[in-house]
């Protein structure tokens, strides 16, 4: 199946690839998915005063999974933690024009953001 231009763009020029030191106090890390399912996303957020000041990701998965996580990092940067929690996978589906078989990639990206925020909160006593 042909990929949408948006997926191709994120695949060729992924935004915010990389890692933060996961033990840093201002970093939240979310790792979701499993190798045997063919997708693992690691999404990290750097949070300052309730605002996401930076985000990074690494993804093992198909082009749509890479694009979904790349887009997610782009979207959450500059948003408050509360705003980021409201991000829906359907927003990703729409933006990337994902076909039905790739919807799970967008769900994973949403889960990764939530997991990263959860991790941050847990490690910062809240």
């Amino acid at each position, binding site marked *: 199946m042909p*990929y949408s231009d948006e997926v191709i763009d994120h695949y060729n020029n992924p935004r915010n690839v990389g890692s933060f030191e996961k033990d840093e106090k201002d970093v939240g890390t979310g790792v*979701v998915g499993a*190798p045997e399912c*063919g997708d693992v*996303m690691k999404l990290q957020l750097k949070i300052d005063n309730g605002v996401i000041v930076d985000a990074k990701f*690494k*993804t093992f998965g*198909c*082009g749509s999974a890479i694009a979904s996580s790349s887009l997610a990092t782009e979207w959450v940067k500059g948003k408050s933690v509360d705003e980021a929690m409201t991000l829906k996978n359907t927003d990703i589906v729409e933006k990337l024009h994902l076909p039905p078989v790739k919807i799970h990639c967008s769900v994973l990206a949403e*889960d990764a953001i939530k997991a990263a925020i959860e991790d941050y909160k847990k490690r910062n006593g809240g």
Partner: protein
Amino acid sequence: MNMPIYMDNHSTTKVDPGVIEEMLPYFTVHYGNAASRNHTFGWDADKAVEAARERVTKIIGADSREIIFTSGATESNNLALKGVVEMYVEKGNHIITQVTEHRSVLDTAKRLEKSGINVTFLPVDSNGLVDPDDVRKAITDRTVLISIMLVNNEIGVIQPIEEIGKIAKERGILFHCDATQGIGKVPVDVQTMGIDLLSYTAHKLYGPKGIGALYVRRKNPRVRLSPIIDGGGHERGMRSGTLNVPGIVGFGKACEIAMKVMKEESARLLSLRERLRKGITDSLEEVYLNGHPARRMPGNLNLSFAYVEGESLLMGLKEIALSSGSACTSATLEPSYVLQALGVSPELAHSSVRFGLGRFNTEEEVDYVINRVTETVNRLREMSPLYEMAKAGVDLKQVRWRK
């Protein structure tokens, strides 16, 4: 070098120019129906079909009266299994096959199972091979058919057909072989291999799509079949429907060319395959070969690239036509059942790529592919959380994943 590069020759092949040339007049000049008995158009078409029949049977060491033309190997496999089971229903209700067969055998067997037939799906070992002893042990006095493929379409491994053929003969059981991927690539002889029914198709050997054949042995023993397509009684009543004359002519020519060039072509493809394998494994670590290293057809290479998902790899190689066992390339989200049957872990099955070299691939293309694969795997590994974890010494098997 022409772009894009086609390296997916197990999926289908380019039609050889010599084949096209022979087919053309059967669209434009001799376009008669081979069943028309009263004019030269019909006679010419019939003559061409019979000449092609000779060529198509010669490549498997059979007699020209022993094949039925079909629409391809899918139909041939359906006809072999369903046709034998229905015809020999009095004799028994058990068939034996194995887990890495093509879907056209597996799904046919599963349908038969629903209608009350017992099916044994034999396992394969970690190299993808069936143990002939397992075949022997699975036979019961109700067994009517053994169906084992010659060459696997994903991993290219060659099954021990001759040994299985011998066992089938000893026990008086019919033996069907799906030889679709092997014809014209490895030597096939229905006599020495003890094959009673054999499926093949033109489009895997540089012939046209939509034409195939089923070999049905005429003596020692004489195999009888129930047709699955009824109608005008073509192909001795075994497969009704107007013959695809240009397709049949092309199939014949493709077989003739294959017989002529097979020896030389196999040697050339083997050397290209080894160049590709060595080139990739020398420049990348943690690349695993799937399937037996030696017992495989010359043009096949199936590799798993740890920490990189197969579909994303193919996406980065968009100017190269390849195929992957990753779930993302299928509708089911399950990675290749063939690789899983070998005991390849699901994560490595997701990371697999099939390289299918063929007649028109060149050394220059192989070198280009080595470079592009290396570059793309390295790029994707830099983006892979699994690679990062493995490099940091994390044992990925011990991680509790959050699915």
